[in-house]
């Protein structure tokens, strides 16, 4: 029986793929955890939409500065070499292709890499977009961090997204609880998969047709 990765383990796995020197935006929520697992030998500059490059860890209790918050409105710190700038410059970095990577959560991803992560189309909920659409269309690489299925077991990798889109054909790779999946020209390609599940088992958790890469590997993460 395959034991799926926890969210912490998915965050750890993503962190291993962020190169030294990269400028990266970690989306609000689950993706923020990636920061906790960046290897010590790499210097990575984290971007925040509200005008910060060089996000550091959370401040100690009592040390919060409410003029220094992240996009999730939580207090943060600034690392050496970090900078402040205004919002329009911040989104020039985003749309101008200056960010190497952005890690986002998702409700759904299509076989072509369409992303749906801002709305479930539920009209009783207040619509709220934030910076997601800009990030989806702007960052050079979009990594999605998500479970393969919803809590109710519905697959999230679909032929076509049924929820309103955040961006078209923008997702490059999905890091999930069972597999790492690239969105290639011809659709989703499984790069890594955890022990105890084969392609057919993965396919049961995705609507879009999956293909196994010839050089696929085993997906592992330490106990966290």
């Amino acid at each position: 029986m395959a034991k799926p990765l926890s969210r912490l383990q998915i965050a750890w796995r993503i962190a291993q793929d962020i190169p030294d020197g990269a400028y990266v935006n970690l989306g609000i929520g689950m993706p923020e955890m990636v920061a906790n697992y960046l290897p010590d030998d790499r210097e990575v500059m984290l971007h925040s939409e509200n005008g910060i490059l060089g996000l550091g860890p959370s401040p100690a209790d009592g040390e919060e500065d409410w003029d220094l918050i992240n996009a999730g409105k939580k207090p943060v710190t600034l690392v050496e070499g970090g900078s402040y700038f205004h919002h329009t410059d911040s989104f020039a970095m985003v749309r101008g292709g200056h960010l190497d990577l952005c890690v986002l959560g998702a409700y759904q991803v299509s076989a072509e890499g369409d992303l749906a992560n801002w709305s479930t189309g539920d009209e009783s909920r207040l619509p709220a977009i934030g910076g997601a659409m800009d990030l989806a269309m702007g960052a050079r690489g979009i990594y999605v961090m998500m479970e393969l299925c919803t809590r109710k077991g519905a697959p999230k990798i679909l032929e076509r997204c049924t929820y309103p889109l955040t961006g078209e054909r923008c997702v490059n790779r999905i890091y999930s609880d069972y597999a790492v999946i690239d969105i290639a020209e011809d659709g989703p390609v499984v790069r890594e998969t955890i022990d105890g599940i084969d392609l057919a088992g993965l396919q049961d958790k995705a609507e879009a047709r999956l293909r196994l890469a010839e050089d696929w590997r085993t997906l592992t993460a330490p106990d966290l």
Partner: protein
Amino acid sequence: MIDKIARSVADALEGIEDGSTVLIGGFGEAGVPNVLVEGMVEQGARDLVLVNNNAGVGRHGIAALLETGRVRKMICSFPRSVGSVVFPELYAAGKIELEVVPQGTLSERIRAGGAGLGGFFTPTGVGTQVADGKEVRRIDGKDYLLELPIRGDVALVKGHVADRFGNLTYRKAARNFGPSVAMAGRRTIAEVSEIHENGGLDPERIVTPGIFVDAVVKVER
């Protein structure tokens, strides 16, 4: 002589008319000029359109102004923040209009307003609901949406230090929307926590030049 220091919040806000579009700096709680916004509650202008990244939290600042019922429409990127109570109530009751704009598009629309541009083409929102009804232009093989500028009758920002010329610095990430918002107001008013007393600020430190600012009020931090 140039002296943009206002004696009081009421003086700074005098003359704001019914029907005004009011641009407000800040992101979440950081950089929101709460004293000026709450001054608008006293000031009394009605039928307002507010522009801010969010839609207020708690019952102070933007939320307090919304609660007066004098705001007709909110333009923002994310009205669903933790602790936001007043706006969701008004929206659910059909008492306020909402225009949701992607965050970078909101910021750039405000900048375009301040920069005298007729709009700009952005890749953000192509192929989404945001594109509905908008011109799509293919430029160098890539699709872009035409987005139009936002100008304010009034712009309210929170700076850190100001001088009598209206030059502003900001503090840390409280800068956020401030510089773009300051450019885009027909009348721009800044609240700051410090007034630089001896002439002008160090020109190397100035983020918003005084040409964009009409009045400055010192408030307690």
